[in-house]
């Protein structure tokens, strides 16, 4: 009896969330899959079952170079966010000794996450531009004679902005993993004569792996699907898969956009499945 009512109340409690996911996540994704087989002309989309959207997409060399470019952004962003995020989390977890300071410094890192991404991208313009702060400083110091052109509207700017926006996604899960490491393990390592670096390598890094995996999933998926950073920071000179989809949407070529979207989704899911082999998410909460 009691378990019957509690079961019923569980279903009652989960229904709103399940319903929203069904209507605004599952059905839309199914719609994309269906429409990716539809035909279209200049004005509308036409129900059909054709494979042209895919054959055109996969047969075009442009697609492959765009994927390569997107993977390049994802890989570079992943390396930098991992190195920076790990170092920051390590400092917070093991070198800041009072809980209050840990919380304060952690908050200091997270606050920018709650502000607008677009504004955070724009805020690099006065810094990196042709007459920006960095170029003026370099010229004044006599390091370069002419403003460096590659700073803004370039691959460099895209990766810089990605790192700026998403390093937090690494810091939080890695910090979380590190805070769970039993401090006596570290002492044991030290007592056994391990140097700080050896402790880091053979105790802290292996035990931080779940955090690293979760952070990597976040960073890689968000960069793989990104279009706004690439659009704004490359000044329209580079492409990414997300940008290609958004351009096709702009041209009202919805079935083509849908086919691109399906391929992107499969790519992202493959990457995530690979990373999930390293970690059981449900255990990490």
């Amino acid at each position, binding site marked *: 009896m009691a378990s019957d009512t509690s*079961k019923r*109340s569980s279903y009652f*409690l*989960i229904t*709103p*969330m*399940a319903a*929203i*996911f069904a209507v*605004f*996540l599952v*059905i*839309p*994704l199914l*719609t*994309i899959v269906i*429409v990716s087989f539809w035909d279209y002309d200049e004005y509308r*989309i036409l129900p059909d079952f054709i494979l042209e959207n895919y054959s055109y997409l996969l047969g075009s060399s442009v697609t492959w170079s765009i994927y390569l470019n997107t993977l390049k952004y994802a890989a570079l962003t992943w390396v930098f966010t991992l190195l*920076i995020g790990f*170092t*920051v989390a390590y*400092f917070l977890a093991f*070198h800041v*000794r009072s809980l209050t300071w840990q919380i304060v*410094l952690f*908050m200091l890192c997270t*606050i920018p996450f*709650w*502000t*607008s*991404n*677009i*504004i955070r991208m*724009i*805020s690099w313009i*006065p*810094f990196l*531009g042709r007459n920006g*702060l960095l170029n*003026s400083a370099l010229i004044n110091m006599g390091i370069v004679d002419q403003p460096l052109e590659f700073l803004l509207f370039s691959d460099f700017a895209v990766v810089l902005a990605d790192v*700026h926006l998403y*390093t937090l996604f690494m810091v939080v899960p890695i910090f979380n993993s590190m805070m769970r490491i039993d401090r006596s393990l570290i002492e044991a390592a030290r007592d056994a004569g391990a140097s*700080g670096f050896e402790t880091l390598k053979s105790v802290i890094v292996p035990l931080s792996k779940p955090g690293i995996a979760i952070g990597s*999933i976040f960073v890689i*998926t968000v960069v793989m*699907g990104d*279009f706004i950073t690439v659009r*704004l920071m490359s000044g329209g000179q580079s492409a990414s898969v*997300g940008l290609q*989809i*958004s351009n096709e*949407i702009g041209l009202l070529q*919805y079935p083509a956009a*849908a086919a691109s*979207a399906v391929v*992107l*989704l499969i790519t*992202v899911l493959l990457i*995530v499945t690979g990373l999930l082999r390293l970690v059981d998410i*449900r255990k990490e909460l």
Partner: protein
Amino acid sequence: MAMSRKTRERRPTSFYFLAAFFTLFVLFLYGPMLTIFILSFQGVNGGLTFPMNGFSFHWFGNLFERQAVGDFGGSFLRSLKLGLIVMVVTVVVSFMAGLAFRRRFKGDSIVFYLAIASLIVPSILISLGIGLLFNIIEWQPQWFTSALGAHLTWTFPFGLLIMFAVFNRFDPSYEEAARDLGASNWQTIQYVVLPMVGPSLIGVAMFSFTLSYDEFARTLMTAGALNTLPLEIYGMTTNVTTPVLYALGTVTTGFSFLVIALALGSVAILRMRKGQKA
């Protein structure tokens, strides 16, 4: 005390390197924001970069002239309303789901993996999917229907994960005690569970509001005819070449900071009250 013993312990050299690295990281995070903050007070004849050509509030004034930069006021109000709706829905629904997940039930892992999927599916796919769906069933996308749904797919996972973290550390013996004293289910939630998870719910509220308020990609195809603020800002980046852009950045960032301060403040007040009662 343990603390004072610890602080007397000599810090290793690596501490100073790491502290310097951390400082640089914070500078990296806040430096650009600070530059546009300063530049938004650029003089009337000043440009998008330094030097400052005088000091003025001109660009802030410009922001509120409707014709000059699109519809800042309208899009701000729309984003504010949408953020508040998303916030209320996310808090209530995540709290309910958090309660449900305390017991195993059939299909629990389906909902869990839907939440994870919702987090990692690229935002533009959500936008495209909902846009197409509304297109096919011939409904007009509106910020309070399609965009609301799109935003919820983004805020629910965060809300649910926070609730997981809370209830995993929640001692059920308090509820048992309440029930033993004759409290009904609802009374147990109202007088025992809610006060204990209150600060975390404020966290969920702040997360969901700010995520919705700043969301761009999921709004792109779902907002319909009227822009939300991030769409308006995005439009401005392509056709505005004056510091009014920075003024807008300063105003919206200031507003985000205000929301964060409100949330942190109310958590602190809740904690203090609890401390006084105990």
